[in-house]
Every structure is written in C-alpha cells, then in structure tokens.
C-alpha cells in the first residue's frame, strides 16, 4: 500500500469502486461534484454503470430499482439534493434494500450556500423521510476515514439490508490528504441475497415493495426492521476518544471536521494546563449514548460541550445521553462558516470560568 494525495470527493468515489460499488446514479451539486466527475471517467473502466439522472428524485427511484437486483448501488449528493431523495430512502428502508448514500453537506435550509455545514444531522439521524425507519449514519473526520467508512458502508448496507448514509461536511469533500487503499477489500461473509430480483428462472417470482395494505402485515414488517435497528445498536456503535482522562475538566462531543478543530484546541489548552477530553461519534446513528453518559459522569467533569457546524442539533442527543447529570452547553457556527480554533477556545475558557452558566 502506498500513500497517495487525493481530494476527499475523489477518494470516496475510488473507495466505492474498491468495495464493489460500481452502479452509480446521481445528479451533480456543489460541493461534491468531483465524485461524479471521477466516476464518469472510472466506472466505464471497471465495467460499472454511471447514470446522470434528470433530478435527485429520479436518482432515489433508480437506486430503489437497481438495489432490488442485489447489486451494490450508491449515490452522492449534497444537502438539498439529499432532501429530494427522502421519499425513496423511506421506501428503500421499508423494502429492506441495501444502498449507500454519500452526503457532502452544505449550509441550509433551502438552497442555502455551498460552504461546509453539519446542519443535516436531524435529517440524517431522525429520518428525513416518513415512517418508522432508521439509517446507519457514518461521519468521517479525514479523507482516509471517508475511504474506510465508505467501504464499510457497503458491507453494513448488505449486512442489514438497510440504507447507509455517509455524511461529511464540505471540507471532507474538498480537502486533499494522503490515503491508502487496501490491495484487496476483505469483508466478513454475508448471507446470500435470496431476496434479489434476478429473473425468476427456476424459482417463484419475488416482489420488492414497501406497500403493505394489511395492517398486520405492515406491523410485522416494522417489527422485522425494528429488530435490525436493535442489532445495529448492539453492534455498530463507533466513536473515538481523544485525550480522555480522569483529569479532564470538560468533555467535548463533536464529529467530522469540527472534531479535528476541537483536537487542536484541546492540544493547545493541554500545554497551558487545562485538561479537556473529546468524544468523537463516528456512527451518528446508532449514537454512542452510553459512552457519552459514562464519560460525562466522571467526577472531574464540570460540563459537557457540544460543538457543531449548525445551530445545535446533535446537542439534543448529547443532552439526552447526559441525563441532566452535568450541564450540557453548545457552541456552533452556521451558514458555511467553520468555527475557528480561537473561537472554540474562548468559549471553553468562558464556560470553565463560570461566566457563561447556562
């Protein structure tokens, strides 16, 4: 393996191919258009399918159809485009179809802007579409992690027969970092796709659908998919601890690029004798709720601070995790403005001085 310099968007595209995702349906949108640009060139070389749809609504339905055949299918988009796919995402969750959706987030609401944001947390983790469903949501903080999580995403989508969302703020797509691709993509064995529609030769026809007019059948379908969500909660919680120790006066919870900015602040404050730890959720759903609760409960922790590029979304889940045992504060910027380390630092020091009690 050699380290090569790649833009996040291109690295994600290459990662998908390496994981066998060679059926791509999309509509271009800043700041992720390089994903499609790269795949337009690469997919014909590997015998894949590239379809530029007429809209993101069409993309969603193309994904539904293609995923029904059991092939590894995916799309990439940015916030407003992902909004347009929500109906199909709900349908795919209901029909238990594996698909990977990449969202390189920009500022909203509405058309918003094209600069980095993390304001699709609610949409991603609470179900942007209708009905009782969940998505597995993975949030990388570097180009290498974007590669690793994209590849893992295809595996998890197949493992649970459920859509997987990989979300990165615009910086993840735009920046270049060294990445390594495994020579061969090894993944644990998966069950046979006996549900895939492959032309009913020598077997009974199959139907892939999310429509169940019989209320008992619909309830049964919801019970089946709910059981998978419980398994995800048991098996798929991912997070990273950074400089977490018994000396910490504060616990920061932050994800994606924002978490890296917090790391810089934590390093600087450590040199000045202020001890702060970071818990970085990598899976936003399932959320590392118990882990946050445990860290927040440690005796030296005075407060918990959530830092996001939004007006405050993940902070609601952090608040729920902490269960009122410690004060939970929020700091964020929005509209495409990325909080500078200096701003985060100032907020931390004010909070620890007690000047900004909630």
């Amino acid at each position, binding site marked *: 393996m050699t380290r090569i310099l790649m833009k996040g968007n291109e690295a994600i595209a290459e990662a998908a191919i390496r994981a066998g995702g060679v059926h791509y349906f999309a509509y271009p949108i800043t700041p992720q258009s390089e994903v499609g640009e790269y795949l337009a060139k690469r997919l014909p070389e590997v015998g894949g399918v590239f379809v530029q749809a007429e809209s993101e609504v069409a993309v969603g339905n193309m994904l539904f159809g293609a995923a029904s055949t059991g092939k590894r299918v995916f799309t990439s988009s940015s916030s407003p485009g992902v909004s347009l796919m929500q109906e199909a995402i709900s349908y795919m969750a209901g029909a238990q179809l594996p698909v990977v959706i990449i969202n390189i987030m920009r500022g909203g609401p509405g058309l918003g802007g094209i*600069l980095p944001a993390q304001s699709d947390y609610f949409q991603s983790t609470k179900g942007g579409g209708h009905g009782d469903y969940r998505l597995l949501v993975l949030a990388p903080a570097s180009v290498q992690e974007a590669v690793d999580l994209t590849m893992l995403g295809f595996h998890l989508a197949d493992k649970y027969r459920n859509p997987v969302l990989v979300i990165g703020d615009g910086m993840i797509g735009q920046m270049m970092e060294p990445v390594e691709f495994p020579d061969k993509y090894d993944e644990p064995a998966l069950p046979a796709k006996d549900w895939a529609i492959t032309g009913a030769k020598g077997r009974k026809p199959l139907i892939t659908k999310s429509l169940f007019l019989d209320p008992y059948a619909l309830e049964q379908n919801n019970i089946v998919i709910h059981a998978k969500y419980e398994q995800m909660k048991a098996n798929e919680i991912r997070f990273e601890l950074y400089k977490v120790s018994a000396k910490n006066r504060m616990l920061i919870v932050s994800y994606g690029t924002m978490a890296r900015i917090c790391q810089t602040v934590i390093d600087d404050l450590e040199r000045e004798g202020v001890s702060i730890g970071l818990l970085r959720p990598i899976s936003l759903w399932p959320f590392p709720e118990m882990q946050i609760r445990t860290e927040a409960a440690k005796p030296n922790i005075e407060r918990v601070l959530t830092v996001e590029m939004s007006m405050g979304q993940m902070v609601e889940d952090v608040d729920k995790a902490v269960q009122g045992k410690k004060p939970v504060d929020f700091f964020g910027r929005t509209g495409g403005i990325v909080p500078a380390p200096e701003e985060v630092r100032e907020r931390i020091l004010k909070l620890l001085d007690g000047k900004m009690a909630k």
Partner: protein
Amino acid sequence: MSQYEVTFAGFGGQGIMTAGQLLAYAGIHEGKQVVWIPSYGPEMRGGTAYCTVVVSDSRIGSPIINTPLGLVVFNRPSLEKFAPRVKPGGTIIVNSSLIDITSNRNDVAEILVPANDIAIKAGNVKTVNMIMLGAFVGATEVVSYNTLIELVKEKMGKKKDLLEMNLQVVDEGYHFAKSALRAKVKA
C-alpha cells in the same frame, strides 16, 4: 511535535493550487502528515485563488488555518489580505515583479522574489509558481531541496523540455531565497 502551515495566494491561473499540491506531495514523500485545502466558495473570475498546506510530523488536527506560519503571495491583493494574518516569526515570500509594496511587518522574514522576471528570463512565465515554491523551500526548509527536485521530476517529467526549465527555475528560486536570507542575517 512540529507543524508548518503555509498559504499560497494569487490570481487564478498563476499555478497556486499546483504549487501547494507539490509541497503536499513532497511532505508525503518525507513520510509526513499533510493536508491541502483549496479556497472553495463562490469566487469571481480573475479573483483571488488560494490554498493552504499543512505539513506535520504528527496527526493534523484542524485543517482550517487562519494564522499560517508561511505565506507565498503572487499578487498585491493577496499580500494585502493575508500578510496581517501570518504568525510572528513566520515567513512571507513576495512576488516583487507584480507587487510594489511590502507587508510592513518587522516580526516576520519577508523575502522579495522577482518571480515573473526570473520566469520570463527562463523562457516561460508560467513557471512563476515553481520559482515561488523553490524560494519558499529555500527560506523555510519545510521539505528538503532533494525531495522537492525529486517531486518535480516525478510530477512534471512527461515533457522533457518543460521539466528541465522547471528544475532550473526551482533551483533558481531556492538559491535566491537562501542568499536573500543570508543578506538579511548580515544586515
């Protein structure tokens, strides 16, 4: 733990992004951690283009750098915009062929390189970015001279006549900055 951050800035078309990427590649070549970030946003044609490169011995935290240690500026608007942000003790490389002012800072090392003049003399004004990159490496040694030369050969080796010109101007920029620094120390 040692980390260096540098912003390259100028007009679109001056090879700003390429210069930054070459430095990032050179960092990788030396086994370091690197991040390259472009200016990204609604930009005007003819407006300012810039990118920032971080080269570090250890894991890089914030990829967003508001106060870099180094600045390589190709035009006057970039100098005016970025020079006040450079950390004290840092380095500013100024393309003095196109910039008729200086940063007015006495807490940084400022090196004036007539990069467009050198490029035109060498036979191709498009090599201005390579002269500025050479000068930056000469002034800071963020990566070694040998690594830089090797990278230029690797990334620009397809057209032999252009490669030789690029190697010559990188060398010229490097040594121009070295002797300018020596002159500063003597003064």
